[in-house]
Each structure stands twice: as C-alpha cells, then as structure tokens.
C-alpha cells in the first residue's frame, strides 16, 4: 500500500525538481542577458572613437547575440509566454549591437578609402611635378580625385545603410521565426543561413555589386572610345578574382585602385591618341 502511493509521489517530486531546475536555468540565463545588456549599454555610452573599441564591441555583439538567441529558444521550448518580454528585449539588444558593429565597419572602410585616396593624390602630384606638366593637368587630377573621394564617401555611407538594413531584417526574421516555432534549433542549415545574414558575413567567391559599380565609374572616367573595352576588362578581372576566392573586401580594394588610377590611364590613352593623330 505504501509502495503503491510512493511511486506517484516520487514522480511528482521528480517533475517538481525538473521544473525547479528549468526555472533556475531560465533565471540564470535572464541574469546573464541582463548583465550583457548592461555591458552593451555601458559600451555604447563610452566613446567610440577608436577602432580597437569598435572591435571589442563587435566581439561583445557576437556573444550577446548568441546569448539572446539561446534565451529566446529556451523560452520558446520550455517556459510560458509570460517571459516573452525578455525575448523582445533580446531582439532589441541584438539590433542595437548589429547597428553598432555596422557603424564600426563603415568607419574603418571610410578611413581605408581616405588613406588610399590621399596616398594616390600625393603620388599624382609628385608625378605631375616630375614631368613638368601643364598646371591644368594637376588641376584635372585634383578634380577627379575629389570626385572619387566624394564618390567613395557616398558608397561607404550607402554600404553602411545597406548593411544595417540587411542585418536588422535578418535578425527580425530570425527572431520572428523562432518565436513562432517555425525554425527549430535542430535545422542547422536554416540557422546557419540566418546567422550568416545576421552577422553580415558573405560567402567568398561571389562577385559583389559595389566593386562592379566602382569599376564602371572608373571606366566612365576614360575617353569615350575606350570606355566599353575597359569596363568589360575590369569586370572580367573582378570576376576572375571572385572565382579565385577573393572576398568582398579584396574585390572592393581592387576596384578602388582601378578607380584612383583611372585619371592616369585616361592621360595615357589621350597621349596615345594624340600620337596616332600627329604623324
């Protein structure tokens, strides 16, 4: 009689203990999330003037994103909807982090662009002085470099906005699907795709759009007769680079150098054209 009653009581106790452990785990995760949130806000309030700090922020972002996802998944599977506010908070936090990291990358990109343009500008000035060219040549180069610099700034800004939008939309899709149970954690391919989208990573070996556009702009700076040829040649080289496994950053650097040296190529093409005209 005692044993007959003892078995259900034992099962109840086991279930209670399991629930207690689940609750304790949830509380621990929620505490960790709150701590991550505190750290993130502390970091965001700190000055973001150095790239090292931005890298630290990106690292924090990755950890907080993973933790937020873990919490959201855990809540979906095991606890009731009373804790949904934590998931919303995690979603908001992840968006803040993604945006913060996008700003850091855009800033680094813009600095690299500025360095390349400045170095090339100095080189062109030295070249113009060395060859004792007409001052108009120098002014011409300066004008094109200014144009390229503005274009680079605009592209960096556009790239920044595009990354923001892409990451935010990826995170929202991720969290929405998780919240409706359509993306179980056991679907690794879908999870990988969403994670890659959320972290802004792109596969190497794909021809990126921005470098192709930059190459198109470089070709537009050339004399009209040579534009089609060089546009196709530049795009072919970028495609070869992509096939060889060059990532988006390498392709961008390649196209940027094409753009910054386009005025020199234009001068060469014009000289060659004059040589052909004058016997």
């Amino acid at each position: 009689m005692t044993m007959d009653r003892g078995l259900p009581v034992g099962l109840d106790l086991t279930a209670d203990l399991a629930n207690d452990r689940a609750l304790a785990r949830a509380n621990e995760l929620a505490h960790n999330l709150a701590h991550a949130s505190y750290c993130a806000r502390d970091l965001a309030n700190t000055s973001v003037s150095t790239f090292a700090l931005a890298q630290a922020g990106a690292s924090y972002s990755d950890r907080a994103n993973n933790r937020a996802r873990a919490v959201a998944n855990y809540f979906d599977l095991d606890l009731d909807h009373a804790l949904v506010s934590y998931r919303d908070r995690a979603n908001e936090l992840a968006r803040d982090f993604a945006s913060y990291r996008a700003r850091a990358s855009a800033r680094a990109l813009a600095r690299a662009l500025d360095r390349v343009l400045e170095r090339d500008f100095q080189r062109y000035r030295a070249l113009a002085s060395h060859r004792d060219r007409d001052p108009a040549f120098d002014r011409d180069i300066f004008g094109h470099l200014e144009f390229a610099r503005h274009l680079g700034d605009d592209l960096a800004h556009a790239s920044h906005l595009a990354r923001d939008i892409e990451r935010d939309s990826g995170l929202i899709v991720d969290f929405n699907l998780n919240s409706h149970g359509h993306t179980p954690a056991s679907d690794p391919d879908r999870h990988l795709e969403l994670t890659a989208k959320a972290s802004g990573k792109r596969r190497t070996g794909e021809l990126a759009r921005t470098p192709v556009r930059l190459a198109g702009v470089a070709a537009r700076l050339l004399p009209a007769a040579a534009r089609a040829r060089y546009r196709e040649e530049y795009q072919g080289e970028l495609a070869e680079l992509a096939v060889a496994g060059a990532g988006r950053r390498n392709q961008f650097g390649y196209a940027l150098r094409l753009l910054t040296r386009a005025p020199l190529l234009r001068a060469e093409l014009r000289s060659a054209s004059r040589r052909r005209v004058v016997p």
Partner: protein
Amino acid sequence: MTLPVQLVLRVLLADPAQEIYGLQICEAAGLPSGTIHPILARLEGFGWLESWWEDIDPAEQGRPRRRYYRLTQAGAEHAGHALSHATSPLAGIPALSPRSAGGPA
C-alpha cells in the same frame, strides 16, 4: 623607365609568344590593380604591345571574356634593349619570375 614599367616588361618578356591577361600580369609583376593598365596602354600606344579579346562565348563559359596581351616582334626587341639600358635598381636584379620567387629549388 620607371620600376613598374620594367616589372611589366620583364613579365611580358619572360615568354614573348605567350598571351597573358591583365590579372596574370598584375600577379606575376607583383603590382597592384590599376597600375598596369596605364602602362599597358602606353606600350600599346607605342606599338610594342598588341591586345585582343578572347574568342569565347561568355554565356557558355560562365565568365566574361579576357583581354589578352602580347608583345609584338618589334616590341620584344625594343623592350629587351630598353631593359638592358635601364638605370633603376631593378637592372641589378638577375631575375624576377614566379620561379625565382620561391627561392632555390
């Protein structure tokens, strides 16, 4: 003659009969993108170099056509002569080819 021009000429002279495209020249000469096109345009303007489009169907091959370059016969002679009289430090370097880049065999 500037150092980049010498580097490009050395790559082209390594096998004057070989057709070679822009990215290959960049890699073989160790020059960044954009540097070689003005040089190639200058050499082409002087008649030292000839260029043509690769004869393929891009849709079939799944990649754009390449623009191939090769020294003309006169260009190879002029380039050899010019390199032998070049005054830059590169003239003192015995060989600059992918083979020598890896060190002794």
